[in-house]
């Protein structure tokens, strides 16, 4: 474990604010257990909990908070200078940070999704959801880390993507689904464990290729942006 990833992990967990991450997975688990124990038909509560809450809200929001937190928080309070002045290649800064962000997101999201998937259908669905959510968290985190280097307001731009692009446009304009990480995750999970709960119109090859492209592309972009990063004070 390199020093950078150690510092990043401590920056994430050292403060009280990481408790902010807990309610989302806990709520997911509670709803799944509640529905299961009351004997509601899984076909009815499955899509609402697994997709509506798990993949559409918990995964992107956790990835947004963590992904912009690993680098964006340091840029915000200016301590990123301490890392930038060390004789480290830029990729040795980005990759550990991305790994910590994706790992934390994956654990936070995949575990409750696995349990909910098992309760809803089968162990296979649980594993499928966990694997797909881990892939999704890598893609989301790469995107949000790159975003925090491209702009001074990464969280708001990330929210534009999650709320307006995936949430609002995804419901009305079906064409935008081809460019939405959420749909890739659903497609991948549906491929690993075909059920009638997960429905998407994105094909599996497109989903896997695009997820890989997003993860690799935005990581490369982040490394490149960090090369010519200029530390500026807060404006406006």
């Amino acid at each position, binding site marked *: 474990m390199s020093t950078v990833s150690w510092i990043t992990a401590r920056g994430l967990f050292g403060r009280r*604010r990481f408790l902010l991450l807990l309610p989302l997975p806990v*709520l997911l688990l509670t709803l799944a257990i509640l529905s299961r124990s009351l*004997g509601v038909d899984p076909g009815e509560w499955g899509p609402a909990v697994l997709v509506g809450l798990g993949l559409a809200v918990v995964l992107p929001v956790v990835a947004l908070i963590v992904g*912009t*937190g690993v680098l964006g928080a340091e840029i915000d309070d200016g301590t990123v200078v301490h890392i930038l002045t060390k004789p480290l290649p830029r990729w040795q800064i980005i990759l550990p940070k991305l790994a910590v962000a994706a790992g934390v997101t994956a654990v936070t999201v995949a575990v409750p999704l696995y349990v909910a998937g098992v309760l809803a259908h089968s162990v296979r669905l649980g594993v499928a959801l966990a694997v797909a959510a881990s892939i999704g968290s890598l893609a989301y985190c790469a995107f949000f880390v790159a975003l925090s280097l491209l702009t001074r307001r*990464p*969280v708001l731009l990330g929210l*534009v993507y999650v709320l307006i692009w995936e949430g609002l446009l995804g419901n009305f304009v079906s064409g935008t689904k081809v460019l939405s990480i959420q749909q890739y995750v659903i497609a991948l999970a549906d491929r690993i464990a075909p059920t009638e709960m997960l429905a998407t119109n994105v094909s599996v090859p497109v989903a896997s290729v695009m997820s890989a492209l997003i993860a690799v592309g935005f990581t490369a972009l982040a490394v490149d942006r960090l090369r010519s990063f200029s530390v500026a004070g807060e404006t*406006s």
Partner: protein
Amino acid sequence: MSEPTGVIHDIGYQRYTGPRLGRRHVFGALYLHGLRSAFGLGRSAKAKIFPWLVMGIVLVVAAGLTAVRTQTGQVVMTYAQFADAMSWLVIFFVAVVGPELVSRDLHSGVLPLYFSRPLPRGDYALAKLGSLVTALWLLLGAPQLVMFLGAAFTTDNGMRGVWDELLDLLPGLLYAALWAVVFASVGLLIASLTGKRAFAAGGIVAVFLMTAPIVGILSIMPSRTVNELAMLGSPTALIHAVGQYTLGDLLVPGGDPETQIGGFGPVYVAVAVLLVAGCVALLLLRYRKVAAR
């Protein structure tokens, strides 16, 4: 050892002896400043991007709806339904503006400067709340006004038609005010908990979004009472239920509110009032603590 030769010269500093404006004007100034900064007025272009992006989207949607109505004569959305359809944008707007109003002051530690004025702790919080409520109401009200103007100028029944439209518009504006009050009080409370704008924005969105599926789950529970009370689960649904109870078919044309909320209308109204009152009380408590620091 020479004698001290320094002299303190009187260079003419004077105390201000004129009238002082007092509490009401401090409140007003703070409110106006909050409202201006909600839309990025008096700030750099960067601060204007996000508020005006949201404002632009809702106005474009309203213009589109008006165009459809004037061309085909079909009412796609009533005034009250407009607020419901824009709920995601309202959440985003609160996530942009709420932290802008309170988290900046917390972050840069200027609250002692505010409170060194004749400004009670509560007034600061209430002024900020007021400006957020007004900004949200403008966000939802302006597009409704656009729709009203479009409908009023194309009506076939002369003044009578305009009057009917106006009677439809006023409940819509009241409903927008309900949205504004509930979202502002919940959002500002969350934003006031942290000085980091990024975390405040994430927290606001998380709270509003993660409560929405609770409604979905509760409404398929095997109990009719739970189904009818399901909309207590999230602020968005709570507002919708209150709207169903008070506005009736203006919000759900042709629908019977009894089917969704049963006889629990008064319960929803009471819970909405309690929610707003509780959030405002917690906000005031929060600022008592912050001010004491």
